[in-house]
């Protein structure tokens, strides 16, 4: 029984990691789901005490299946549901923005964008660099970098 359960865990994990390596985002989500299924199964069978249901009234003397493991798996299922749902809505968003769900297309797009930016704007000196020390107006404010206070939009 031990071997069989471990085999099932391994097969699910293998299928999941295969999907994870695809360049189709929807398949990547499928991969994460399969892997979380495999982990849930693993946690569940690790409590292979296999007795009766953990609900009172209990039959005296009989083994009870491990309720802690069950509670943990329950939480894990719910959380992986939330995460998967978030992931597919994110992919929908990506689709709306780029009309593609393929990682190759997206990274090509990003690369082109960066090249375009580099042609238009000279390299930004980055945060923490200011040439003149005395304060005063500085007219060279371009893309801000990460130093912008959250509230900048209110300006």
């Amino acid at each position, binding site marked *: 029984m031990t071997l069989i359960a471990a085999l099932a865990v391994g097969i699910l994990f293998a299928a999941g990691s295969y999907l994870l390596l695809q360049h189709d985002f929807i398949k990547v989500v499928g991969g994460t789901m399969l892997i979380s299924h495999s982990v849930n199964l693993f946690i569940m069978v690790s409590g292979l005490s296999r007795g009766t249901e953990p*609900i009172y009234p209990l039959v005296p003397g009989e083994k009870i299946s491990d309720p802690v493991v069950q509670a943990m798996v329950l939480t894990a299922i*719910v959380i992986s549901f939330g995460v998967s*749902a978030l992931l597919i809505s994110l992919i929908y968003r990506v689709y709306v923005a780029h009309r593609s769900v393929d990682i190759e297309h997206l990274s090509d797009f990003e690369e082109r964008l960066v090249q375009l930016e580099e042609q238009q704007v000279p390299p930004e000196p980055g945060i923490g660099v200011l040439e003149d020390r005395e304060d005063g107006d500085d007219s060279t404010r371009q893309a801000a970098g990460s130093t912008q206070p959250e509230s900048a939009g209110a300006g």
Partner: protein
Amino acid sequence: MNNGMARQAARLLLLPTWMVAFAILIKGYSDSGDGFSAGVIAALGVIMQYVTYGTATAEKLRPVRYARQIAMAGLLIALSVAFVPALRGQPIMTHYPGPDRHAVHLGSLELTTPFLFDIGVFLLVMGVCIGVFDLLAHATRRERS
């Protein structure tokens, strides 16, 4: 999806679904199931209406209109069960009545704060599920038009 049978079934099943959800919620502490499963079942009842009748009809249902408020209320209930004890100087998630104290019985249901916590989870999950489907339905309609 314009199948009359399906519509009839969905309409007829809505109330029983909610009954089942309610029963699971009440029975949570004495039998299998808890606030989460109850919430999902209640939401599935509503989602059935979406699938059979379409967005316009389903949106008239009250839980759909107030999905967000339901979710917020649930989150607030659960959070307050967790953190109100902290205001009284006790560790968070302290439940009342304490161990082996007397609690009011209503059949198999005992009125305790964990039950209130479960209700919070129930409302949150129901609100979230319905809310997500409502958004999805709108997105689908936009995509079609």
